[in-house]
């Protein structure tokens, strides 16, 4: 009984290897179910033929190469060629739109909660009518900005691009045109509002996901009927978490579905109590592992070189140093009793917040309270840093690209990084979001290394030598599914080339399908964690405030090291890249 209790508390259970594990163990079922989704996605998106895609890519690339040789800055023709390529996206296929509608979660709202679920035809038409004047105005402003940009570019060309002042003026005007173009795109969205009703699709999705996970539950010999009965409330709580995270003020502060799932579940569990009939559906580990296999496909290794060597140094050199130093600091100085809590907080803070916390917690068998605590800390500090860092950068007059790289390497959540970057400038947003993306890719390496270290060093008696077979027995097998998905999709993306890879993998299989499923799976796991968590148990892990001290000390070190590295890379070693972004 006591053993069962310990097993249900950890994010992942201990594996014993035998051939029957393939159809009896949760880790393998997470891999089978995750890969089933990825294979369906690959069959839908990869063979898709988008009319004129290859021709447009070839033509646009030729234009961009020629323009890059002609001028010392990105010209109007360069940008137009880039836009022509971006027009092709797997997610714009008709079937992708149906998938998106089916997997849709409650959307944004401000004061009327119904806006999140339903928008009638009349309401949509009224909104569109309201948005039309703005769209017309934005179109006119864009045309005007384009004319000014072309004129400035012509003047710079007339001086054979040898006049620095004319070049800068042209760059400025082209930047204004890009801003105007972006404004038109947003205004177009407001002038073409479509009606929606997510309630029927939510009901359908609840049934589909319940059946999907029930396949694994049945194969593992668990209570299928109990699972299906309890799944409804867990799904409803997940939908509620999405609903709450879509509220305007919550978006301002970066309070996402993860924290709402945990809070919502904990409030229920610690007040009226989680009903007994819901408990068979609280399959935290199963949802997390399946979501992580899908996340693996999104970890594309070719993204590491997206911004060249500076990005690799800022994201892939600083991050492991901070992770290891913070872990050692937690063990040697703070003497945090739980190594799993220490590593989960260290990974959460240094790598990329919630996603790294989930992957690390699963890899080292952390307890669900430890994961909850790490995510809570991440949320609080992300909200603070998202607001304070851009304000500080502006106040001290730090170059925005340096500021973007700094924020990208230190703020935990990608959404918060994008908001903080956009608050400075478009270039800062690009650098910040790209650095964060490169850091996201580090999750795979982190999870694998933590899993191996835990099997070989932590989960054994001091001085005991662990054989490779023993490591294999103990190794969380779903990590292999995670890595396999990462390697396979990185290979597919790489072999398709940067343009087709972006269109069919990044904006096809991944953004158009698997990440929507993955989002729901993680949301289910957070709701289940909340429903199974006791406030008192959580308070026990918080004793002495050591987790907060660890986070603050680690983040301070991260801030200093990232800023130093970003400055050296973007302003000393590679100023050319910085100048052209």
């Amino acid at each position, binding site marked *: 009984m006591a053993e069962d209790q310990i097993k249900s508390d950890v994010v992942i259970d201990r594996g014993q290897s035998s051939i029957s594990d393939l159809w009896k163990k949760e880790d393998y079922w997470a891999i089978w179910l995750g890969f089933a989704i990825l294979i369906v996605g690959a069959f839908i998106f990869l063979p898709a033929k988008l009319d004129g895609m290859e021709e447009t890519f070839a033509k646009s690339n030729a234009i*961009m190469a020629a323009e*890059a040789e002609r*001028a*010392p800055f990105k010209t109007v023709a360069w940008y137009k060629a880039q836009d022509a*390529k*971006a027009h092709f996206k797997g997610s714009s296929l008709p079937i992708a739109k149906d998938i998106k509608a089916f997997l849709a979660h409650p959307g944004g709202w401000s*004061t009327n909660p119904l806006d999140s679920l339903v928008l009638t035809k009349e309401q949509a038409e009224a909104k569109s009518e309201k948005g039309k004047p703005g769209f017309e105005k934005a179109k006119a402003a864009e045309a005007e900005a384009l004319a000014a940009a072309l004129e400035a570019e012509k003047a710079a060309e007339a001086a054979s*691009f*040898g006049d620095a002042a004319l070049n800068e003026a042209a760059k400025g005007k082209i930047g204004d045109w890009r801003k105007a173009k972006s404004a038109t795109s947003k205004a177009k969205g407001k002038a073409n509002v479509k009606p929606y009703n997510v309630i029927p699709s939510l009901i359908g999705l609840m049934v589909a996901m319940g059946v999907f996970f029930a396949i694994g539950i049945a194969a593992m010999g668990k209570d299928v009927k109990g699972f299906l009965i309890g799944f409804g409330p867990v799904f409803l709580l997940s939908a509620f978490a999405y609903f*709450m995270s879509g*509220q305007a*003020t*919550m*978006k*301002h502060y*970066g*309070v*996402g*579905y*993860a924290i709402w799932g945990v*809070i919502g579940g904990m*409030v*229920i569990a*610690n*007040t*009226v*109590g989680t009903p007994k009939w819901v408990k068979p559906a609280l399959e935290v580990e199963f949802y997390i592992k399946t979501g992580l296999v899908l*996340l693996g496909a*999104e970890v594309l290794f070719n*993204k590491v070189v*997206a*911004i060249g060597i500076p990005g690799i140094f800022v994201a892939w050199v600083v991050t492991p140093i901070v992770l290891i130093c913070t872990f050692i600091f937690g063990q040697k100085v703070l003497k945090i009793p739980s190594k799993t809590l220490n590593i989960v907080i260290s990974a959460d803070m240094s790598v*990329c*917040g919630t996603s790294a916390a989930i992957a690390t917690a699963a890899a080292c068998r952390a307890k669900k309270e430890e994961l909850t605590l790490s995510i809570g800390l991440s949320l609080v500090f992300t909200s603070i840093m998202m*607001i304070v860092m851009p*304000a500080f950068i502006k106040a001290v007059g730090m170059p925005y690209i340096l500021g973007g790289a700094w924020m990208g390497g230190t703020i*935990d*959540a*990608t*959404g*918060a990084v*994008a*908001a903080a*970057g*956009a*608050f400075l400038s478009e270039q800062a947003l*690009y650098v*910040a*979001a*790209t650095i*964060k*993306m490169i850091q*996201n890719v580090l999750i795979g390496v982190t999870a694998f290394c933590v899993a191996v270290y835990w099997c070989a060093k932590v989960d054994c008696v001091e001085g005991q030598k662990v054989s490779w077979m023993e490591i294999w027995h103990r190794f969380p097998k779903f990590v292999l599914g995670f890595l396999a998905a990462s390697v396979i999709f990185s290979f597919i993306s790489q072999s398709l080339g940067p343009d087709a890879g972006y269109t069919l993998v*990044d904006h096809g299989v991944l953004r158009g399908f698997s*990440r929507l499923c993955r*989002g729901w799976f993680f949301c289910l796991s957070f709701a289940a964690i909340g429903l199974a968590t006791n406030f008192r148990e959580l308070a026990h892990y918080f004793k002495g405030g050591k987790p907060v001290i660890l986070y603050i000390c680690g983040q301070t070190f991260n801030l200093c090291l990232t800023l130093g590295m970003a400055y050296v890379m973007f302003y000393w070693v590679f100023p*050319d*890249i910085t100048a*052209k*972004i």
Partner: protein
Amino acid sequence: MENASLPKRWLALAVCAFCCWAMMFVVLPAVNRAFPEMGKLGKLVEEENIRTGMFFYTDVEQAGVADWNIENTIRFMPRGGPESAQ
């Protein structure tokens, strides 16, 4: 709470729901109004429709746009003009 009576437990749930409501519609909007920078950031988040709570790069549309722009810049890095001719 396990030993409390059912009405007390439902009352606790109602109090928690009220706290969430107050945080969402009273406390945090007041913070936005008190700190102009916070209000500006909130407005930007609304205008750009940035999903700030999302944690992975594939969840954030702006990260895709950033990746696309940076990747193309690195691939087709402008190097023209008289300096390159020399």
